[in-house]
């Protein structure tokens, strides 16, 4: 009897623990040389963190807006989200049938941030996200693997990759799903991407202080640069039909 009880406790705690951390996976910290290679070639240091296994889905986001009325379509302030916010939903609290487990899209940075905050989480930092995104299903850093790069680049060309359920494809070696091949994802510090030469005016050197603008020294990772350019083009209230997010801790 006592053994049975003990067994129950073990089963329960394992079950509970499994449930509690099921959505987040721990990523061990480390340092890596980012592809943009700041002029000094300096490493990026990342402390250990947790990240969602999948992008946040329509179903999960619906739960959030149900509890947080200010983030419903009709209530949201224009300064925090554009008109197209959640425009793929049929109403404030209705998702198109069958899209429940698709990644949520058309969400602004402010909305994504508020969602994560409501769960006691935050958005991943750019360097954290990129570290997870370097991994293929069997290598921690697969950036030199031409097959891996080809896979990412071809997914950027595929239309409507956001119209599919999360967790259908093979996860990467961290157990993280859909970091490539589904949606672009918001990161907390997306506004840290400074690309000189985006050139809104002639002689744009005056647009930025200091000499730290991203200086590309390694152009081999084209996919990486596409993500950088994309982030640099974003504003925090933009809502885009192939841009979603996942949370971190």
């Amino acid at each position, binding site marked *: 009897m006592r053994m049975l009880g003990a067994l129950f406790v073990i089963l329960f705690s394992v079950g509970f623990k499994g449930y509690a951390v099921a959505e987040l996976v721990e990523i061990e910290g480390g340092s890596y040389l980012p592809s943009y290679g700041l002029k000094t070639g300096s490493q990026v240091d990342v402390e250990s963190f947790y990240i969602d296994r999948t992008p946040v889905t329509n179903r999960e986001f619906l739960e959030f807006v149900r509890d947080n009325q200010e983030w419903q379509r009709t209530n949201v302030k224009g300064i925090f989200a554009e008109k197209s916010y959640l425009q793929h939903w049929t109403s404030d609290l209705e998702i198109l049938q069958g899209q429940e487990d698709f990644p949520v899209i058309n969400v602004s940075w402010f909305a994504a941030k508020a969602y994560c905050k409501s769960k006691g989480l935050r958005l991943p930092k750019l360097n954290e996200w990129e570290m997870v995104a370097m991994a293929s299903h069997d290598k921690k850093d697969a950036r030199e693997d031409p097959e891996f790069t080809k896979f990412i680049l071809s997914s950027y060309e595929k239309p409507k990759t956001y119209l599919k359920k999360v967790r259908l494809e093979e996860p990467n070696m961290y157990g993280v799903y859909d970091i490539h091949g589904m949606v672009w994802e918001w990161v907390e510090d997306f506004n840290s991407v400074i690309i000189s030469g985006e050139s809104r005016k002639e002689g744009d050197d005056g647009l930025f202080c*200091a000499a730290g603008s991203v200086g590309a020294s390694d152009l081999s990772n084209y996919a990486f640069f596409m993500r950088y350019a994309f982030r640099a083009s974003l504003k925090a209230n933009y809502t885009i039909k192939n841009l979603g997010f996942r949370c971190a801790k």
Partner: protein
Amino acid sequence: MCQIKESYQKMISSYFMKMGFGILALTILISVGLTEDFDDMSIYHLPSKWENQDGKEVVLSELKGNVLVVVMIYTSCQAACPILIGEMKSLEAQIREKSSGDVKYILVSIDPEQDTPERLKKLSQENKMSGDRWLFLRGTIESTRDFANLLAVKYTKISPVDFSHSNIISVFDKKGVLIHQQEGLRVDNKATIDKILELVE
């Protein structure tokens, strides 16, 4: 009998209808009253609290009714910030000559960890930017990023004491809506001055 019942029902329903309208009208009045000056695009929706150069707490919406001229800087900046500060001073001097309207000149720190109110105060004194037209603000790391994102200001830490950042001076109307941005260093500020004068009227 049936007719009587019907008219009775009508009476009741019209009574409730009226009451409903009354409540509706009241709700609309209240909500209009509450959001009076809060435009959909107003920065005053940002609930964050800030500290000024005197260490006093500032809620952004207290600034309502002023035209705001805003720049993001940090005190240990050696490169562009002195130029941006000079530009703010020049704007203030030129506007003061032409108008006595309510304009606030706000310098927001992008380095809230280092820029204590004391450091901001020192910066204001060194540059002779004192008086209630000048406001130096320090938030948290989070509120600073929120604020920068409302201005589309990019910044990144490039060393423990240095940042790379956009050089943008932003002008907000009295309701807190971003109306105009001047990008770059040593650019012609005529458009900015005209806009401020127009908004302050």
